[in-house]
Every structure is written in C-alpha cells, then in structure tokens.
C-alpha cells in the first residue's frame, strides 16, 4: 500500500520513473555501494504504522504521562522561563509558510527575511545596539561566540566570568572556550555574599592585559540586578577588554539597556520573547553590538540587511557578511553556523511588535513587583527566608537552611501538591546550603502565591 507521505510510492509512479531511468530493479541504482558495506542485518524497526490515528494515539499517550506547567503551578526558571505566550505568536509560528521552508531567494523569501529584519531591529532597540545577528542556539552559545569574538578582536585568551553564573550555561561557555593550548581560559570572579552582586574588587584583581572580555549578567543567574554595571564595564575597558553583558530581554522595558552601561556586546536568551518552554527546546541566543566594522567582521552568524532592489524605492533583505561564515569560508570563517532557531526568530518579532514600548515597560514592572511580592510572602513562612530580599528581577534565592529540610524534601512535598518548587541550588552553589531559585513572572497571580505559601507552611511544619 502506498504511504501517505510518499506520493511516488505507488506502482504506477515507480514504474514510470524506472522506465524513464532505464532500470528494471531499484537495487540497480545502488550499484555504487559495495556489497560488503550493506547492513549485516535488516533494520529492525518494525513496519510503519500507516494509520495516523494510531501513531497519534501512541505518542499522545506517552506525552500524557508528563505533568505540565499548565495543570501544575510552576516556580522553576533558571535559564528557561514561563512567560505568557500571546495567541498571535502561536498563530504565526504555526503558519506553514514559516514552519516548513528551507531557503529561497531574497525575493521568494521576502516575507520571512523581513520578519527576521524586524526581529533584529526590535531586539536592537531593546538592547540599544545597531548591529544584530540572527540568533544562535542558546544564551550559552551566544555567550560562547561573543567571547570568541572578543578573543579574536583582542588577540587575548582569557575571559572573566562571575561566580554566580548558571553552571549549565558556564558548561556551554567552557565548551566554546575550548581545551588545550589554544583554549580561552575561564577566570571566575567572586560575588559579594551580602548583595549577590559581583565583587568589584575581586573583578578588578582578575582583569588584566590577558583579559579578552569580562562577561557578566544582569540580572544575574540568582536574580540579582547588577546595580553597578557601569563599574564592571569601566574595569574591563580600563584593561582593553571587551565588555559582554548577558541580559534578559523581557527586563529591558524596565532596566537600562546594556549599551548605556558600557557593554560592547550584548547576549541573552530569546526564549522569553514569545516562545514556549518546550522542555528546554525553546531557547535561542542573540548577539548584538554597536554597528562598527570591528565587531561586525567577527560575527559567526548570518544576518539580514536592508538593501535596494532593481526597482527604485523598493526594499529587499539580503544576507550581509555571508563570506565570513563557515558557509562562505569553511574553516577560515568565524567559528561556524548552520541551522539555528530561525522559526523562533519570526515569533520573537511578533512578540516584540505586540508588546511595544508600553508592553515591555509594564511587563517589567509586573515581573519585578510580582517577584518582590512573592519573595516577601515566602519570607513569612517560618524558617524560610529570602537570601537577597531586594534588588532582584523575576528570580530570587529562597533559603531553607533554617527549616531543617533539604530542598529535595521541600520540592517533593510541593510536587505532591501540584507545585513545582524553585530550582535546587544546593549542589551547584554549596555555599548557599539548602537554597532554591524561585521564578515569578507575569503569569502568577496572588492566588498562586497564596497557594505556594500555604503549601510551604504545611511542608515546613510537617
């Protein structure tokens, strides 16, 4: 029986093509492959399930064994955050035209290229920068590429990063920085345990003439806003190093853009801009800089630029600086590029366009206020405290040390109540003891926080 996915899997179609191609047996076409190369045993995958209903039922039943953040109350963040995705974002993400294409000409892909340009333009507006590449795989990947850009620009092989960095993101950065003789050394600067911010004195001590870049984040991985970002950039600049700021784009209606505190390169995650959690499959990383040749020449990414067409006054969008990518120059190009997260790029553009200046200002206020509210209320639970109870955005560290319970115990008990407690920090940040990183966004209501606080009361008292 013909397979629905394969129009030519009918005897008629195959016979017609074989006739024209002059073969009588399909196996003749594989003459190139020596017999000794053929699979020793047939592929044991079973026959295909032709009925879509059966495939769907089977996969759905597996998926239905998952507990989602919709029917549970979620306080996990730490690199992937639950924000509200406007329905229009889903509508555009599901458009076949954007979902399935590969690559056309600037004319045949005009609409998608325009959407990409609108992504870059709006993201550039958020971070206050004029040159924006198409995104890479993740925040960690973006930071990794940015550090490599800085290393190429400065000819130096050291990067200073904060101790508060997400260990997962740091692991990606380390992989990008490499191993062995040519590796970029990763130097960790301490944070001030009283404030959760970078210890500027330690930073100053660690930045020197070998430093290619200082990489820092605000808010940092533990939620704390680096109030003295200008000083960080000043220290880097003072030693001829590049300043790379990692930022959360959803904060930038409320917080200063990195361009204003001296960042040379801004990176971050695009996931907060209208992309579902997707079990971590919604992440993407942006890279933005000033529009200076010095930076532009180091981008490993593709990027679209406005350009003229043969018709006066008409605009098209084409790839700029293609030759410096791996597609253009193989190993001579900057790092490498390939398929990335370009469908999300279109959705990011939609999200930013929907939000506009007021939306970003409001969502920043709401997230700051909601997370502050939640922190204050969580802090009322006996034995539970908030490590840095002010100056944070969206995420904050909850300290369970005084409860005598481990985060593992707390989170298990919460999960039994339909609550996903904050990310356990006890392994990654042993100096914090039994602490967890809670994420509160615009999706949380007063009732949600009450539910959390009640549950914590029970759990701690139990």
């Amino acid at each position: 029986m013909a397979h629905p996915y394969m129009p030519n899997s009918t005897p008629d179609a195959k016979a017609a093509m074989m006739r024209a191609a002059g073969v009588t047996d399909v196996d003749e076409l594989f003459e190139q492959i020596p017999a000794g190369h053929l699979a020793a045993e047939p592929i044991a995958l079973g026959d295909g399930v032709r009925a879509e209903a059966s495939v769907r039922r089977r996969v759905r039943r597996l998926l239905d064994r998952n507990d989602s953040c919709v029917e549970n109350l979620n306080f996990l963040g730490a690199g992937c955050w639950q924000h509200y995705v406007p329905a229009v974002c889903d509508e555009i993400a599901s458009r076949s035209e954007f979902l399935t294409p590969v690559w056309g000409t600037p004319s045949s892909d005009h609409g998608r290229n325009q959407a990409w340009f609108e992504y870059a333009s709006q993201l550039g507006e958020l971070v206050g920068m004029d040159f924006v590449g198409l995104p890479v795989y993740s925040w960690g990947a973006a930071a990794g590429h940015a550090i490599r850009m800085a290393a190429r620009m400065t000819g130096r092989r050291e990067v200073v990063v904060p101790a508060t960095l997400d260990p997962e993101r740091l692991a990606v950065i380390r992989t990008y920085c490499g191993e062995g003789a040519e590796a970029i050394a990763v130097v960790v600067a301490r944070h001030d345990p009283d404030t959760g911010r970078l210890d500027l004195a330690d930073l100053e001590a660690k930045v020197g003439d070998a430093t290619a870049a200082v990489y820092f984040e605000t808010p940092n991985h533990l939620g704390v806003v680096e109030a003295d970002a200008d000083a960080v950039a000043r220290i880097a600049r003072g030693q001829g190093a590049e300043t790379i700021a990692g930022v959360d784009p959803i904060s930038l209606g409320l917080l200063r853009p990195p361009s204003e505190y001296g960042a040379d390169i801004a990176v971050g995650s695009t996931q907060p801009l209208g992309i579902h959690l997707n079990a971590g499959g919604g992440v993407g990383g942006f890279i933005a800089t000033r529009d200076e040749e010095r930076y532009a020449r180091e981008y490993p990414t593709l990027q679209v630029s406005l350009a003229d067409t043969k018709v006066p006054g008409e605009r098209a969008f084409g790839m700029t600086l293609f030759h410096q990518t791996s597609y253009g120059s193989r190993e001579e190009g900057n790092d490498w590029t390939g398929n990335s997260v370009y469908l999300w790029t279109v959705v990011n553009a939609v999200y930013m366009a929907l939000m506009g200046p007021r939306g970003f200002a409001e969502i920043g206020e709401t997230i700051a206020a909601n997370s502050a509210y939640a922190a204050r209320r969580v802090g009322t639970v006996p034995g539970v405290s908030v490590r840095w109870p002010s100056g944070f955005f969206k995420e904050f560290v909850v300290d369970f040390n005084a409860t005598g319970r481990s985060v593992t115990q707390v989170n298990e008990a919460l999960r039994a109540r339909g609550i996903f407690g904050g990310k356990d920090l006890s392994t990654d940040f042993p100096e914090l003891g039994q602490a967890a990183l809670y994420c509160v966004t615009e999706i949380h209501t007063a009732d949600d926080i009450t539910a959390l606080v009640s549950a914590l009361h029970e759990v701690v008292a139990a």
Partner: protein
Amino acid sequence: WDQPLIMEQGGPGRRGTVPPAPIETAVDALPEGVRRTTPLALPEVAEPDVLRHYLRLSQQTMGMIGISLFGTCTMKYNPRVGELLAARDQLAEIHPHQDDASVQGLLEIVHEFDLMLRELSGMGRFIFQAGGGAAAAYVHACVTRAYHESRGELERRRDVITTAQAHPCNPATAAAAGFNVITLPVERDGYPSLDALRAVVGDRTAALMINNPDDMGIYNPHIKEWVDVVHEAGGLCFYDHANFNGVMGRIRAAELGFDACMFMLHKTFGAPKGGGGPAVGAYGCTPELEPFLPGPLVVRTDAGYERRENAGGVGRVREFLGNLPQVVKAYAWTLAMGADGIREAADISVLANNYMETRLLAIPGVTKSFDHLTARRLEMTRYSLGEYTEETGVTAVDIQNRMTDYGVDAFWLSHEPWIVPEPFTPEAGEGWSKEDIDYWIDVLAHVMEEGRADPELVRSAPHNQVVAQIDTASLDDPARWATTWRAYRRKNEREVTA
C-alpha cells in the same frame, strides 16, 4: 502588496497586547540607577494589525507552498500530526528543570528514539543536545578533543582530516575546536584517493570528518579502508549523515567502522526545518566514546527513566536536552514510516534522482558533475550550467531567480568550494510527486530557453515576486549595510516616523 516594516506602522498609544497588572504595586522598587530612562522606540500597533502584518509576510514566503527541490538538505514532507502533538501542554509547557518523575513520557520517547537511531546506525547511544547538524559536528570535535585529552594525546593530535565535498560545518567546527584542518581534494573518481588520505594521516591525526555519499550523489566505495587507515593511526572517524536519505536502511555507520555519526532530525526524519531551525543534530557514537558525551544522558532504570550527568564528558554544547519537540516529531515520523517505509523512501529518493537525471541531461546546456563516471548517483546529483552560462551569459543564480516566477522555490547551488562551474543541486527525495518533479524540470527547460531568446529577461528576474531582484552592492559595505532599522535610519540620515 508592499508591506511596510512593522516599525513604520501604528501610532502613539496603540497596544498589541497588554500584560497582566502587578499583583500589587512594587513596594520595594528597584533603584533608579538600574532603570531604563531612554524611551523604547518599538512600534505601537494594535493586535489585529500585528497579526495581519505577519500573516501577509507569511504569504510572501514561498517555501514549501510552491515546489522546492532544494538539494543537500533533504527537504521533505513534515507531517502535521507532529505539530499537533508538539503543541500539547504536555510538551510545550514542560519546564526543562522539572523532576524526572514528572516527565517520564517525554524521557521514554527520547530513549525509544535513541534506540531507533541506534538500530539505523549501529551506534551505542544518541544525544539530541545539538541544535543542528553543525552543532553535532561541533559535538564531535569536542568529543574528539576529550577523547585524545583522556589519552594524553591532545597536544599531539592536531589534525582533522576532511574532504572538499564534506559539508563546511565539518572543517569549521574542527577549526573552532582548535584543530588544524586538512581538506583532501576531490579526484577523478569523484572523491579523494586512498593514497591522498594515507599521505596526510599520521600520529597528528585527531579525526576524520566526512560525508558519504556526498552532495554529488557519489558514494566512496573505499570508505571502510579510509576508516581503517585513520583508526590505525589512532584517529576517530565521524560520519556526517547529511546525505543519509539515499542510503537509509541499507548501511550502518558503525558497521562501516565509524566511531560516531550525526543525523538531522529536521531534514531526514520529517521534522520541519522552520526556515533554519529549531533543529536537532542527533549525535551518536560507539560505546567507547560514550564516556565523552556531553550530559545529561537519558537512561532507563528499573524505576523508570532518568537524566544522568556524564562525569568526564564534554560539559555541554547547549543548555538542556535539546529541541525535544523536534525529537517527538521525528519519533512520530519514524513510527509512521517503519523499517519498510524508510527503505522505500531511500529507494524512491534515489529513483527520483535518477529519473531527474535522465530528464535533466536531455536539456541542452545541462551537464553533470564528473560526467565520465557512469555509476548511478544516489539521492542527488550535482549539475552544472557552465556551458550554458558561457553561451548565454545567464548564470545559475539568474535561472534560480527566474524559476521563482513560476512558483518554483530556489534550488541549491553548491556548498563551498564550488568544484563545478555554475553548479546546481536539485533533490526530490521521497516527498515530491513525479508530476511536481516534471513541472520543475519543465520550468527549468523553459527558463533556459528564455535565457537563450532573451537573456536580459532572465538576468533581471524575478518579475512576479513581491520584490524585484536585490541589489547586493550594499550588503558588504559597512557604510550601507543595516541589520537593524536603527542602523538604517542613522546611515540614511532621514527622518522616519517610527
């Protein structure tokens, strides 16, 4: 329809969406010093207008709505059932840090799909962390680094060997990982000779990274010897399976001796390409290399499935487990296809290519790469318009532009380096009907005739698209390129109402 930029639309005070108000006004506000004071010059557009704008842009993207025989990329049908599955809360609204106990279904799918790919490749384990084929190649470069480091040979083993017909991501990721790249040229048989390989292999060899068959549809029949040669010298062998479609079900990478391979789920396994991601480069390796894989690995235990860090492995190439929605779609596709469907897809894909070859070579001016080689090509063939261009002045890019006027999306020319002049590489795969393939060929023949009769008509194409041919002059000019509207306005020093 000339659709203005979203930044040019709207008006003061318009709202596209409104976030929830705060639970209570922030008592403990952030200090003034960290707050934005510069107004955000983002568009202010109402929701229906934002929606309509992007709907229109979608309609201005031809993609797979026309006919797209884009080669080297294995464009195929993306079953919509996968989209419906991926849209379910039980996948779209799963947080990557959830407890394993709450994502057992997802982990089971990851594990089951790993087993499927093991069956297709003979490898010992797959991971899905890499966000594309290039990232999977980078995984291999990192695994290679870690492998040699573990043996104390990293300082010595500096060379990664590849071929001119290997995908650019192989040399590029090897170089990014700190290796020296040796690229073997293609020789008379359509691939580098074994002697050429032997000449460069030695104790400096870290790895071989290679495609087979390559983008010309040529299979290197000496590939087992290649692997042996590299192995004998202590190097690892990586099989970039970008061109798997023609050999699916017929060969297994591990049986050919490879240590690792890579499958692109967004191409070969039916997940959509999204115009360039989200994608997955599934990286698989033998049990010997498993200790070097980046964690977390998904393992089955008596108690169920769990994510487990891989001590001593490459830390991470990307956060989290990977683009799992694409894994779920690929899993559904593989279930639907089965062993029989996968084998049939390879057959049809190669048959369609040979059918195309018969018809294409009948068009005056179309020649085939390495045309002295008589063996049948696999799922694609690289052609050349070199003679035609010399005759008419009309290039492959011109032809490409003009074909879009007939609802045929751009074909792929060739990856760098171009080995044949004015190359083009169509690929029908198993997803396009014979009628569509015939239409595509008819359009090509017609456009080539147009180019003979009226070269300027083709050179100035397209004529029926949303916008005319791009003027590429400004794209690499620092004074004129503009990747953002901010940059454009600054460089063009003109007042534009946002």
